[in-house]
């Protein structure tokens, strides 16, 4: 494993990042990744502040993915943003979005608190209070689940197979979409794998990084790297429920925090959920006892997955299930990019970025849109009106229907699942 080193001079100014940048295509307020990244980085060595246009980078990492010279352009932007915020404090909204883990913990401190928080958020949106904090009133703010994944996990009885993996749910699966995590456990059990959790994992830090809280993100990184190294020594794969988390853990930590990562092979053991399942498939270890699932699906590959050099594992896996017709949307970024589209001054840009994807999905009219990223799913449903699912849920459904068999039972299960 090589450690990422940032060398802005490797940029040849070929402009491929500018051409592909979804934000630059949607608004002229953003000068584009080449300018705010490697070009201005040279200026920043002698100047203390940054170009105001930097605020508009969404950190979707399309620039990093399309750079032929290996420059992590967006990471240069995030480091510069953190420097800017050393003297210019963030808005309340940015604070809230960055500290999603603390917010979620507060909302779940007492029974019923989650429902109350959700109610509070929707009232806040309708009366304009969100706007005062810099949050968009129209944006699809995720609601909290009544019971977090980690709480639900304790109630699940698994068969303790000798093959074990450690699940890193990430804040979104843990607090907003625990069902995706529970579905993962069911799928793993069907593959004779026992899923462990680690209560000492903390937020990967992705929302902290994009809002300029680099010091806090580094503290989280130190904790997570320590825990992951521990599992790596035992030979246990660590599997994430969200591509933004796996990106942060395995790739961005190495770009942002060389002091923590140089000479440490912790990242070798990290897999995104569908990446791990595809490995099982390619090693002929995947349980292929799928039932027919008659569904038309459209797959959206999240930007934070595409930059991980993995291709589209979910597309290949779901195509194994009989009855499924699945097509890749191939229509660019959804626009949300973590918490970008929740901000009031970014909402319109995010919707414009996602517009090609929304119209592609609306036109195809699938039964479900499928995407590995929870935030992409929220935005897709918000923009297109089509329900969206994590690919793991489709796999679980294929196993469940295989176990039960009759068409009537299948319908009943489908109804219960969705």
């Amino acid at each position, binding site marked *: *494993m*090589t450690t990422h080193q940032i060398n802005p001079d490797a940029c040849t100014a070929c402009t491929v990042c500018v051409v592909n940048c979804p934000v630059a295509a949607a608004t*002229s307020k953003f000068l*584009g990744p080449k300018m705010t990244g490697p070009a201005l980085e040279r200026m920043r060595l002698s100047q203390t502040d940054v170009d105001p246009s930097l605020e508009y980078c969404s950190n979707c990492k399309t620039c990093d993915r399309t750079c032929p*010279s290996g420059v992590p352009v967006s990471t240069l932007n995030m480091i510069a943003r953190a420097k800017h915020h050393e003297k210019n404090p963030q808005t309340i909204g940015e604070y809230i979005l960055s500290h999603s883990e603390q917010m979620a913990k507060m909302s779940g401190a007492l029974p019923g608190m989650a429902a109350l928080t959700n109610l509070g958020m929707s009232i806040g949106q309708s009366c304009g209070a969100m706007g005062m904090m810099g949050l968009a009133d129209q944006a699809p703010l995720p609601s909290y689940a009544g019971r977090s994944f980690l709480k639900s996990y304790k109630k699940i009885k698994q068969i303790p197979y000798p093959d074990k993996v450690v699940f890193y749910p990430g804040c979104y699966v843990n607090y907003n979409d625990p069902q995706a995590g529970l579905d993962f456990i069911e799928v793993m059990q069907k593959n004779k794998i026992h899923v462990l959790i680690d209560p000492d994992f903390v937020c990967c830090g992705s929302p902290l990084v994009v809002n300029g809280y680099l010091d806090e993100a580094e503290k989280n990184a130190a904790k997570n790297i320590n825990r992951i190294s521990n599992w790596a020594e035992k030979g246990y794969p660590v599997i994430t429920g969200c591509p933004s988390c796996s990106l942060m853990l*395995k790739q961005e930590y190495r770009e942002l925090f060389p002091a923590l990562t140089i000479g440490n092979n912790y990242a070798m053991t990290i897999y995104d959920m569908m990446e791990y399942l595809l490995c099982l498939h390619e090693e002929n270890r995947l349980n292929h006892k799928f039932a027919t699932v008659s569904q038309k699906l459209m797959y959206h590959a999240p930007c934070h997955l595409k930059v991980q050099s993995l291709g589209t594992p979910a*597309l290949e896996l779901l195509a194994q299930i009989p009855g499924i017709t699945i097509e890749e949307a*191939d229509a660019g970024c959804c626009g949300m990019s973590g918490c970008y589209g929740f901000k009031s001054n970014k909402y319109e840009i995010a919707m414009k970025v996602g517009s090609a994807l929304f119209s592609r999905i609306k036109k195809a009219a699938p039964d479900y849109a499928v995407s590995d990223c929870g935030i992409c799913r929220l935005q897709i449903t918000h923009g297109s009106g089509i329900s969206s699912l994590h690919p793991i849920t489709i796999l679980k459904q294929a196993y469940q229907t295989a176990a039960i068999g009759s068409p009537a039972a299948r319908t009943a299960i489908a109804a219960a699942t969705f």
Partner: protein
Amino acid sequence: MQNCDVLIIGGGITGLTAACRAAEQNKKVQLITFGGGTYQIGGGTIDVLGYDAAGKPLDTPLQGLNNLPDSHPYSKITQGIINEAILWLKKITASAGYVYSGDLNQMQWIPTAAGTLKPTCLTPPTINSNALRQAKHVTVLGFTHFKDFYPKFIAENLQQIYGSRKTISAAALTIDTIQKNTLTALDIARWLETEAGFADFVSQTKILVPKKAAVIIPPVLGTNPDCSLLNKLQAALDVTFIEAASMPPSAAGLRLGKLLSRYAKSRGVSIIENLKIDSAIIENGSCQGVYSSHTNRKRIYTAKQYILATGGLYGGGLLADTGSISETIFRLPIEAPTDVLTWSNTELTGNKMQPFAQFGIKVNNDLLPVADNGQPILTNVKIAGRNLHGYDFSFEKSGNGVAIASGYKAGSLN
């Protein structure tokens, strides 16, 4: 994808052509690419051959093909296959509703942003060279604040070329709504795709350009490989557009990339982006797998056959060091003099081919890499595109032609 039939390294026009072609034959195809390609730099035309070795313009691409040395990639590919590749590209572009026109028996001369004409073989529907050839009156239409395309300068230069055969006039319209100091052709293309931009463009152009005119314009006629914007504009204005070869970013080049990529995906090609392959496992002259080491763990990809389409010195397939050139994955031999001063002519755009441009991998007629004795070094790795030895695409104007033809041949498997 492990154990696929064909693994293609490189996602440029060569790699995508090979992938599409292999997938058409029901092969399991994995394409691996690093970087977003050079589509925005290429202008979307397919140049097959424009000039002979002495720099003299050819009457037709075919005339040139008949007189190439055996070492030229086209001689390895053979004329029949080059023609097949051209017909294939016309077929798949037609299926997307964005049909390319031209053939080996005619040279198309298209305008450039320097006010010169450049020879090419195949053009997209947005570059109607026939209309330019036939028109008596031509308008060069630019945009104020757009620094890559000066209509008056272009019109004056073209007038010198055409003399009394045509009258060339210049006009420019103004865009008020988008960033002015960094305006690119791609920004204008995106503006034209908005309802307001379209209406603004039509109302200004109606005043500036007479009906039935041939209009030379920068490559701005939409970002998607279809004719919807072109047709709408031509219907609204009753003119014919000819996009000029211009400074990057070229929307016309991006359209071709999008078209090929969509076609490949629709045929089931699996594409992994942002993955740099840096080594190969070779046993008895046969590749057993390739791997990357920049990711969080070493990943190995295996296939029955491999196609190396990683590009040349610019694309990253070949690496120049002081006194030597190397190929970055298979470490194939690249012949280059140790004296670097002999690598280039002092006149960059002189009337001679550049030696550095011709450095590359030597292959046999099956596109397998060969040693000095002509024997294949590898038996299941084909070489295609800019990393091939023996041609200077910029001098002879064969860019994209060698790409399409060698990609087509490499991807046509048994």
